[in-house]
C-alpha cells in the first residue's frame, strides 16, 4: 500500500511487535467501553471495527494521535518517527481499514472484549 509517498509491503507481524500492539491497545479498550453503543451502530452501517472505534471516539481522542501513529507504524512495519513525518493524518486514517483487514485486528479486539482477559494485564 502507499503511505508517506512510498510503497509499503504488508507482512505478518512478529509476536514481539504483537505484544507491543496489545499494550498500545489496552488503555483504549477501557476507554472504548462507554462508546460501545456508538461503535455497534457504526458497525451495523458497514464500517470495520477499528474505523468504527476511531469515529465513535472523536471526542476523546485528544491523546490518541501518538499512539495511533505507533500502532499503524507497527502494523506497516515502519518506524513511527518516519510515519509521523512522512504521512498525513488522512493517509493514516485511510490506511486503517486495510490494516484491519490484513492483520485481522477486529478479531483481536472482539476476542479481547468477549474474554475480558485484558483486565488481568
Amino acid at each position, binding site marked *: 500500500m502507499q503511505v508517506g509517498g512510498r510503497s509499503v509491503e504488508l507482512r505478518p507481524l*512478529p509476536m514481539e511487535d*504483537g505484544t*507491543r*500492539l496489545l499494550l498500545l491497545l489496552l488503555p483504549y479498550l477501557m476507554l472504548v467501553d462507554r462508546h460501545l453503543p456508538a461503535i455497534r451502530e457504526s458497525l451495523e452501517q458497514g464500517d470495520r471495527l477499528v474505523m468504527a472505534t476511531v469515529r465513535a471516539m472523536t471526542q476523546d481522542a485528544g491523546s490518541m494521535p501518538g499512539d495511533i501513529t505507533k500502532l499503524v507504524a507497527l502494523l506497516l512495519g515502519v518506524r513511527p518517527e518516519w510515519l509521523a513525518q512522512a504521512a498525513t493524518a488522512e493517509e493514516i486514517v485511510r490506511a486503517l481499514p486495510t490494516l484491519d483487514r490484513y*492483520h485481522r485486528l477486529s478479531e*483481536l479486539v472482539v476476542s479481547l472484549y468477549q474474554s475480558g482477559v485484558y483486565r*488481568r494485564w
Partner: protein
Amino acid sequence: MHFLDLIRDDQQVELTIGETTVTLPRARLGIHLQLARAADRASVALRDGNHEEASRHILDYLGLAGVQTRGVDAVCLLSAFIRLQQLNQLREVFPFMLERGDPSEERPPYSYDGRVFALWIHRLAVTYGWSREDILGLWPEEAMAYVQEAIVYQYDEADRERSLSEAGYSYDKTTGASRFVPVTRPGWMVGDDGRTPTKTPKRMVPLGVVVDISGMGPADEEKVH
C-alpha cells in the same frame, strides 16, 4: 455451573490460524496446569513491558494448546491466545481453593514452587488409586472437585475414628451428659451441612489399648508390645 457441564467432552473452540480453521479441545488437567503457568508468566512479562519474554511465553502457550505458530501473523495468534485462555480458564472455584494460608508462616523446608499441584496429584492417587496419567487426564474442575471430596472425606473419617474413642467425648458435669467433640475443620468446611453427627453407643466403643498396625503411627512400640 453444574458439575456435569464442567466435565462435558465437547469443550472446544474453533480458530482461524492463518488460512486454516482448526478445532482445538479444552485442555485436561496436565496441559491446563502448564497453560496456566505460561499465561501467568506472559501476563507478568506484559505488565513489565518485557516484550521478548511475553512473546516467548505466549508462543509456548499456543504450542502447548496445539496451535501451529510458524509464519502466522501475531495479531491472529494473539486472538487465538485470548480465545484459548477463555476456553481454558477455570469455570468453578471450589471452596477449598479460597482458603488462604497464614502469610507470615514460613514455607516448610521441603516446599518448592508448584508443590500444590504435586500435592493434588498425590492426594488423588492415594485416595482413589489412580495413576498420574489418569489424574492429569481429568478435566481441571473435575480434579479439584475430587480433591475437595477427598479432603472432606479425610475429616469425616477422622471424626468417625474419633467417635470410637472416649477421648472424642467431653463430659459436661452440669448436665451429666457427654458431648462429641469433632476434629477442628478448616474455615471453608465450617457450617451446617444438614447432617447430624452419629454417636457411637458407649457399649460399642472399643476398650483397652488401641494398637496402631498401620506402621505409620508415633514411635510407641514399647506401649504396643
